[in-house]
């Protein structure tokens, strides 16, 4: 089974119908394990119990960037290979990515309140995630602005790829801007310095959230395919009604007047 076999939406629907329950079950089990482990992880000697926010915050932040990567690959699929499901994948991923980004911002700001004493700090990472969130919203606005899905798909694909090139540049410039304005960094958390009792739950949660994304993404893609089918059926029906009523328009108009 290669990627091109999935170009048939019916085959894709059949395959995902079989895979989705297993994925959902794996997600639930891993999330349960991860949440249990993070609930029983020891308190940090400095941050106390608030360090547990990390187990939700970090996977969300990781996915906020991962989803843009998935959308970029899907956009290449739209523009280069014209894969029929690529734009479905890109469209379905955008709101999920926006949700993960929003949750990363929300948990970050809830974590910042006890740690930094403020909900919002113009910290480099927070700022660049906020810009990422704005770009997700812009992309969703673009999808919603056009009613023809294939036309919107190509525009969104161009924008997604431009965003993929620009996001590292934005990240770099925000880092630079931040060091210019705030020399003292607020947060230091070296990856290798993380203790094993934190690292393992964090990894489990990261895998669980990635699985959660895959599950949600496949389900959203199924919905999008079905939505497009409903749309084309409705348009067929509308055109049929228009054709059949073209002859008897006079009669139906007088009927409506009579009913009124």
């Amino acid at each position, binding site marked *: 089974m290669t990627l091109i076999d999935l170009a048939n939406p019916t085959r894709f629907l059949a395959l995902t119908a079989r895979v989705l329950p297993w994925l959902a079950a794996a997600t639930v089990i891993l999330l349960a394990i991860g949440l249990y482990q993070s609930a029983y992880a020891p308190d940090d000697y400095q941050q106390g119990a608030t360090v547990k926010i990390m187990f939700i915050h970090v996977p969300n932040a990781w996915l906020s960037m991962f989803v843009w990567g998935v959308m970029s690959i899907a956009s290449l699929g739209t523009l280069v290979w014209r894969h029929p499901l690529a734009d479905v994948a890109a469209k379905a991923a955008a709101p999920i990515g926006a949700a993960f980004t929003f949750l990363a911002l929300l948990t970050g700001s809830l974590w910042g309140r006890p740690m930094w004493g403020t909900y919002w700090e113009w910290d480099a990472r927070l700022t660049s995630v906020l810009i990422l969130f*704005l770009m997700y919203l812009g992309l969703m606005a*673009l999808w919603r602005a056009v009613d023809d899905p294939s036309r919107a798909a190509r525009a969104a694909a161009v924008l997604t790829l431009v965003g993929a090139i620009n996001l590292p540049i934005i990240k770099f410039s925000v880092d630079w801007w931040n060091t210019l304005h705030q020399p003292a960094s607020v947060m230091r958390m070296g990856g290798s310095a993380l203790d094993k009792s934190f690292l393992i739950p964090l990894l489990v949660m990261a895998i669980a959230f990635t699985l959660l994304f895959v599950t949600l993404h496949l389900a959203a893609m199924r919905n999008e395919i079905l939505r497009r089918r409903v749309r084309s059926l409705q348009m067929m029906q509308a055109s049929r009604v228009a054709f059949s009523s073209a002859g008897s328009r006079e009669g139906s108009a007088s009927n409506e007047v009579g009913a009124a």
Partner: protein
Amino acid sequence: MTALSALIRRDIRIALRVGGGALIGVLFFLTVVVLMPFAIGPDLALLSRLGPAILWLGALLASLLTLDRLFMADHEDGSLDLITMSRTPLELACAAKALAHWLAAGLPLIVATPVLGLLLNLDMVATAAVALTLLAGTPALTFTGMIGAALAVTLHRGGLLMAVLVLPLSIPVLIFGVAASQAVIVGPMTFGAPFSILCALSLVSLVVGPFAAAASLRHGLD
């Protein structure tokens, strides 16, 4: 080459004539800068501290405002289809159009900067620094904004949607433009580092912008 120079000359001529609207950008720039003291207060010391930021924001918004028409007018009268089908590569044609737009709408902003600098109590050196950073940075705004203009014309949607899509992409230019201007005025860092990065951003957008705009036009027009 002659085709490209003809395209540039044509675009500049259209932009400068009645209905072209290139100089409206300068008027908008002036109005935004004049509005600022009403919001901040007529405190000259504060205004001179915020001056580079105000000028940069004004120039950013003004160049975005005029970009809306970059492809739209050509699409309406059909010449965009001719440009798309001509033998000249579409990427080069897009670059030529953006260059013409920058010459007609971007350069006047830079020429207007010294006058606006007077209003904001900027001294000679600071004004020169802002004008120089604008000269280096506004091409990046035009070439990045061109992507938004190309998307807008293929979607038959302009205005707000385009602004929402393009503004986040212009954040790096804003950061380094203001940083380079501030470096001259207050220090402590050197002018060279942010200014070089600003030039680099312009060069990158010079490459990326035409390709993305051409891809969007090629896939989007039918």
